[in-house]
């Protein structure tokens, strides 16, 4: 099965080509959508086969590289088109194809009747293909191909409703912000390649070879630079401060796209990349600290904005940014496993949440359409009481919300708690640990609050749309609810493969399968940490760990109860609150004016500079000089041209003059 790894990205690519070229002619939505989904399902089957085969091997042999052909070779530089299968990428392809398949199925229902249905599926397949390339690529350059490829698909899918200006703008913003990240990514590749080659004569971009030579890298110094460059790439793709603003705007795309690209898969690419390059980050505490701080800051910052949004998808978008912050926090404190674990569980419950919100919007849209109302179907203020009309959606949504809020027993708890614990107990950042942990904890509290606010506003209380429209509210068809149910189930049970050691011990030594699985990837880093920080190893008691676990549960419950108080028990309080602090509310509601600040700081100066360069420098200075020379010549010649009277006898006169002169010279000499 491993030999056929190339098929995994190939299947969706075939789907893309067929749908892209012939989709318009096929017309039948079932065929187009079915083909798209089938192709991803085929990839899923191959991925499962590969996963099973890997599981069947001993831990140290779970790595496989297949080179298809040499892509670019020039001098010492060589990049293959090849795939690397190891536990990390196997996990990722399972998530991508699994969740991807469900979302493809969901899309068949959700996108029903849309103009350009085939286009949608073609893009979605292309996205899947690129994402698989990203995770399977055996070198940084191929990863970059996938990295840009997903960015492109994201651009195309955000701009799917291209006739809306906002959609086009959002797509462009996403692409450009991602490009800023890519700038960092490229510099990272350059610096790593150059440094390894120049100092150690190891000219490579291949992950396995770099990992094998990781011991050549120094601690700190240039490695910090490399790590930070790559991190810039990660902030772009994974929507971290300062490059996060594109993600909320990306909600202009169809909802399944938000679920697949902007929640489950693409945005986690940054986390995946840091996981892949863990041996670099572990060698630079400074870089790790930056990652951790940015992660924590993003987590809390986005969470605050999430509390004041009314658009259901925007809340989820900020939630995604915030959760990604958690993942980076994990990466930054050296808890790579926990970060990847959260990546996976987040893929389940956030995909479920987005799809659930899509189901709600779908239904609302339908109802409002029937009632000829022009209310926004995405605005939560128009919703309420949907739990009766849409029981399955409600149930799966609630489960996922509980999971994200971090209630014990659900997947989110295990991963998030692990991150918080690691943030507290890691040996890297010393005194800052407590701040990192505190920030994370507060962010978690906010998460619980705004997520339940969302649930309460949407599914509880009174329905706030017209009665006529209300009659048309109904549960979505099976093609939509089936993926919800599967993902809801995963959101519950997904966490059990990575039970914390503490809890596992309690239940008779159930090991942390997840950690064991990823052990080969991060083993080098762990060893390195032990070597470097043996002296600084801090031992924390089990009691402390239990205590913190309890604390995070309490925090979650606090968040939930606040939400309950504000939105179910006494709904008048939020109004009072916003009246009391109008400035604060406005600032939060307007996302702390970050977009405006960026416009002011970067966009407008860029345009102004461009205009200056063009009209000021190009036209005035350069062309001014050019045309100036021309006009000097012209001025000169307009004087001399008077000699050229055009009268024949004047020419005759000058001929004679010439003759006289020449003879004079000859005679006088």
């Amino acid at each position: 099965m491993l030999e056929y790894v190339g098929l995994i990205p190939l299947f969706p690519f075939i789907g893309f080509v067929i749908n892209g070229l012939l989709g318009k002619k096929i017309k039948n939505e079932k065929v187009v959508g079915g083909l798209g989904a089938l192709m991803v399902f085929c990839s899923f089957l191959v991925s499962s086969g590969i996963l099973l085969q890997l599981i069947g091997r001993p831990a140290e042999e779970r790595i496989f590289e297949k080179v298809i052909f040499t892509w670019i070779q020039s001098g010492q530089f060589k990049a293959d088109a090849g795939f690397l299968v190891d536990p990390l990428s196997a996990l990722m392809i399972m998530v991508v194809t699994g969740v991807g398949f469900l979302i493809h199925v969901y899309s068949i229902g959700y996108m029903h009747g849309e103009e350009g249905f085939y286009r949608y599926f073609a893009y979605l397949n292309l996205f899947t293909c690129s994402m698989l390339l990203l995770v399977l690529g055996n070198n940084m350059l191929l990863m970059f191909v996938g990295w840009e490829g997903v960015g492109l698909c994201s651009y195309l899918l955000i701009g799917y409703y291209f006739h809306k200006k906002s959609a086009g703008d959002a797509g462009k913003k996403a692409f450009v912000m991602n490009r800023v990240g890519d700038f960092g990514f490229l510099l990272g590749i350059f610096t790593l390649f150059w440094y390894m080659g120049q100092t150690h004569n190891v000219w490579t971009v291949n992950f396995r070879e770099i990992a094998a030579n990781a011991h050549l890298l120094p601690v700190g110094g240039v490695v910090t630079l490399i790590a930070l460059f790559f991190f810039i790439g990660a902030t772009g793709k994974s929507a971290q401060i300062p490059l996060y603003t594109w993600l909320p705007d990306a909600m202009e795309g169809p909802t399944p796209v938000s679920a697949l690209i902007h929640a489950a898969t693409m945005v986690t690419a940054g986390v995946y990349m840091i996981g892949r390059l863990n041996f670099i980050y572990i060698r630079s505490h400074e870089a790790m600290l930056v990652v951790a701080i940015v992660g924590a800051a993003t987590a809390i910052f986005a969470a605050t904005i999430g509390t004041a949004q009314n658009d259901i998808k925007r809340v989820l978008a900020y939630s995604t940014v915030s959760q990604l912050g958690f993942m980076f926090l994990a990466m930054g404190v050296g808890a790579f496993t926990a970060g990847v674990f959260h990546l996976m569980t987040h893929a389940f419950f956030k995909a479920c949440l987005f799809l659930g919100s899509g189901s709600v919007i779908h239904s609302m849209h339908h109802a409002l359409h029937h009632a000829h109302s022009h209310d926004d179907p995405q605005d939560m203020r128009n919703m309420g009481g949907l739990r009766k009309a849409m029981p399955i959606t409600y149930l799966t949504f609630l489960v996922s919300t509980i999971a994200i809020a971090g209630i014990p027993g659900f997947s989110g708890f295990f991963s998030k708690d692990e991150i918080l614990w690691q943030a507290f107990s890691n040996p890297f950042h010393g005194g800052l640990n407590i701040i990192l942990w505190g920030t994370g904890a507060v962010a978690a509290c906010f998460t619980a609050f705004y997520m339940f606010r969302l649930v309460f506003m949407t599914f509880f209380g009174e329905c706030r749309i017209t009665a006529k429209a209300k009659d048309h509210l109904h549960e979505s068809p099976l093609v939509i609810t089936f993926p919800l149910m599967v993902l809801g189930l995963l959101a519950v049970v997904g966490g059990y493969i990575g039970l914390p050691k503490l809890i596992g011990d309690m239940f008779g030594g159930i090991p942390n399968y997840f950690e064991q699985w990823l052990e080969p990837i991060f083993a080098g880093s762990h060893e390195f940490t032990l070597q470097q920080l043996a002296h600084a190893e801090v031992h924390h008691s089990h009691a402390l760990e239990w205590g913190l676990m309890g604390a995070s549960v309490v925090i979650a419950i606090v968040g939930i109860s606040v939400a309950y108080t504000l939105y179910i028990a006494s709904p008048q309080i939020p109004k009072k609150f916003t009246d009391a602090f109008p400035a604060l509310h406005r600032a939060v509601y307007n996302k702390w004016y970050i977009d405006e600040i960026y416009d002011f700081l970067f966009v407008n100066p860029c345009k102004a500079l461009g205009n200056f360069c063009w009209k000021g420098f190009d036209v005035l200075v350069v062309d001014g000089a050019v045309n100036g020379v021309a006009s000097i010549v012209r001025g000169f010649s307009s004087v001399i041209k008077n000699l050229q009277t055009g009268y024949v006898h004047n020419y005759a006169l000058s001929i004679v003059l010439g003759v006289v002169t020449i003879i004079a010279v000859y005679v006088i000499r």
Partner: protein
Amino acid sequence: MNSMPILSLITFLPLAGVLLLFFLPKESKGLLRSIALIVSLVVFVVSLPIVTGFQTNAEFQFNEFAPWIAAGPFQMNYSVGIDGISLWLVILTTFIMPIAILSTWTAVEERVKEYMICLLLLETGMLGAFISLDLFLFYVFWEIMLIPMYFIIGIWGGKNKIYAALKFFIYTFLGSVLMLVALLVLYFKAGAGDFNLMKFYELSLDPATQTWMFLAFALAFAIKVPMFPLHTWLPDAHTEAPTAGSVILAAIMLKMGTYGFVRFAMPLFPNATEQFTPLIATLSVIGIIYAALVAMVQEDVKKLVAYSSVAHLGFVMLGVFALNQQGVAGGMLQMINHGISTGALFLIVGFIYERRHTRLIADFGGLSKQMPVFATIFMIVTLSSIGLPGTNGFVGEFLVLIGAYESSLRWYALIATSGVILSAVYMLWMFQRVMFGELNNPKNQELKDLNAREVVIMIPLLVMIFWMGIYPTPFIEKMTPAIDKVIAYSKGKKLAAALQQAIPSAPGPAVMQPAILESK
């Protein structure tokens, strides 16, 4: 091995076409166009064997030699040949020409005969310049190229065509005259009796002379490239030229400049190259950023594309002056890439201009709905232009940057890399404003999608875009040995080695050394 003079054949076939066109009546436009197209296609087909027959080594191949002009002390020869560097440029030229001819099939209705003659003449000029191994021959072709282009812009151009044509001509001519002077100085310094490039390569000039001559050559080439701040002729020429003119100008003629650097300026004057590398790199980087910024605020699609050319060529120059395998290979690839993707962009602009007779971005919007095929092709070409991986643009740009990063130009590469952000900004913004949004202009609502001819034009370009993006190895492979040679010459290694051999230890004027050796 090659009994057939294939290089002469492809160079002068278009000239034969010109002769044929002379005898055709100027009223039968269809026939004229078809003949021109067929000639260019035949040239393309005939040029293919030079790829298959090309041996992957550093030598010049398919050489031809014939004495040409002997005037007093001057001996000019007809000496041609190609190596890995010119190979792809020759192919690019023969590949682009049929496309260019097909592109203005309907747009040019006046003086079709003269137009086609100009195009074919241009092809001869460009091919000749790429294959010349005799500097004087090169100069002749270099100038020949200029004249048809001048007419193409000046006769079949837009509103401001005379200004643009004159600006183009005078700018370029200024440079080439200085080049001619340098050429003559070189000739007399060499004392070799002819203008053979190979002999000039072996020459060791004193640094001061090199400086001046490099400057003269570099000015000629830098204008053609064009490098900041000598670029202002380009937007005007591009905007005013008819589509085929813009395509040829962007795809091939600009490459003359960079090709000139690689083939002449750098290997001939290694010391000066080293001396001026920081300057050239600075100008390249400024060009990349500056052109991107200016492109961003353009209101005219064609001008925007023209400025994007300046930025792309900045990358080429940066790569070439990195003087390592990746950099030069990347630069060479980027030259071809730019030929394909910017050529394609100009074609695209031509398509909508033909339909709407405007190029202002503000006049468009929402075309995607009306022209889906066009939108798809435009999208792909745009992405190729901004260097998305998987398309040709990426491979070249990446190699250039990594090459520059490895070399002493690290900091320049760092700044240049930010060009990837800016290119995305201006291209996508333009794309969005033209293709996305609401279709609210009534004139745009009647636009027709691409017709078969236009799709046929674009398909080869799209194929090349993906081919070079996904499997560039054949391209890089063939040019590698030649690049090694160029680098060796440009770094003056050969010179250093030769000097070391001649002077075992004793310092002292190198000139005196042979005498001492002889006496032994």
